[in-house]
């Protein structure tokens, strides 16, 4: 169970990934806030980021299932990135509520 505490909703400080991308939550990319000076960002508490990321993965799973009974994997790893460079198996996806 997750108890809501306002103090815990503030997102962590960003770590730089590249020129335009930072990361606050593990495996969840975000835009460099400096690029959002003309069109400002919203106040987005941690629970909301979580909700969106989980919803996205559920939606993609749903789309697969909508079109076919099964997805056939190639069963091959990425050939462009080393295993240690890969984000986790389902980036950003946490245990759902």
């Amino acid at each position, binding site marked *: *169970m997750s*108890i809501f505490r*306002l103090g815990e909703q503030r997102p962590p400080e960003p770590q730089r990934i590249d020129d335009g991308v930072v990361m606050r939550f593990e495996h969840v990319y975000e835009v460099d806030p400096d690029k959002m000076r003309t*069109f400002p*960002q*919203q106040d*987005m508490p941690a629970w909301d980021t979580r909700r969106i990321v989980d919803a996205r993965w559920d*939606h993609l799973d749903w789309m697969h299932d909508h079109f076919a009974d099964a997805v056939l994997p190639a069963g091959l790893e990425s050939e462009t990135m080393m295993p240690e460079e890969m984000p986790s198996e389902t980036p950003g996806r946490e*245990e759902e*509520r």
Partner: protein
Amino acid sequence: MDAYTGPNGDGQLQREFVERWRDNAYGCFSSGHKFCREVCPVMQVTRNENHTPTAFHANVVAMEKGLLDVADVADDYVHCTQCGACELRCPNTLFTGDFYRHRTRTVDVVKAMRALMVETGNERPGYKLWNERLAEAHSEPVLGDVVPSQDHVRDWADGLEIPVGGETILFVDCEAAFYRTSYTRAFAQLLQRAGVEFGLMREQWCCGGPAAEMGYMDLARRHAEHNVADWRAVGAKRIIAPDPHDYIAFTEDYPGYFGDDYEFEIALGVELLAELIEQGRIELTKPVERTVTYHDPCRLNKRKGVHKAPRDVLRAIPGLTFKDVDRVTQWSYCSGGGGGLPVEKPAITAEISRRRVERAAGLDVDTLVSACPWSERPLSEAGEAASIDVVDLFELVAESAGIDVGGARRGLVAEERR
């Protein structure tokens, strides 16, 4: 481009509104893809473009361009249950909302427009009356003509010997305190069975959420301030919110009112229950021989991403045959009971519920289980016509725990008191 003065000379208010919401509006308008339309429960019924989340945003841009004014669109904005399907499904949220920290916020836009309607003399008659009655009784008028009075706000708990006050407060909303008391008694007794210590408020006012949803911001805030003062007065640290509508008010609206001063922990009823069952503090020993399907309440599934805990609870009940429908498919489901829709457009609410129950009927079940008392009212009415029993999750769990719940599903107790 100016012009609108309105009956109260309020062009200024509309300009300020547009200024505040134009970024949100352009975020949608520049896109205008309408991925929201087919998941919107109102749109599924009316098929009228005026009621789309797209239109709700486009109107703000249209106001900016001097094409229309709040009076022209006031009726359109009634057509929304604030279920959150659109804003979640919108690719601006679903695919890039977390990346940019900028997502679609149709619920906020609709609330803000309704507030503008109130401020400019364009309020809806049904909303007006509803909130006048709320202002008087501090509970929503959930009993028709009978006033839900503070004198009777704890009557649902008769015989349960629940104290007042303490560190953990059980918040009991209007529908639960006066109408579907079986739901409330089930949950309270489950907590007692698990040995959870909790108390009630000294003065239980409405959370204020629905008032805010209908645009009555001052009224909403006053109720919030009262409730928080009550919590502080009894030294409360944690609030248990069984009703999803309250959970949203306490985790979204209240932080907005109180800022960093807001020190309370908010626990969602169904998640707490799931944990208590998992820890073995509640044993479910009595089989419940029903074939059920689960209705994901909008304010749990779409608005908060809560969909696993209720299913875990259902799967813990012995004897149950559970035919599930996944939570993504249920983004387009709704009871039609939220956002003030039943107050102004009861026929649309009834049709939305009829369709929801029809989907359940298609699964060959005898029971539709929900986890939100506000949804259960219109769903129950539709359920009667389809011979499907609509029950709350807590009621089912209590039955399986061998608890003799008491209370009533339709405020009969209150009616007897007339």
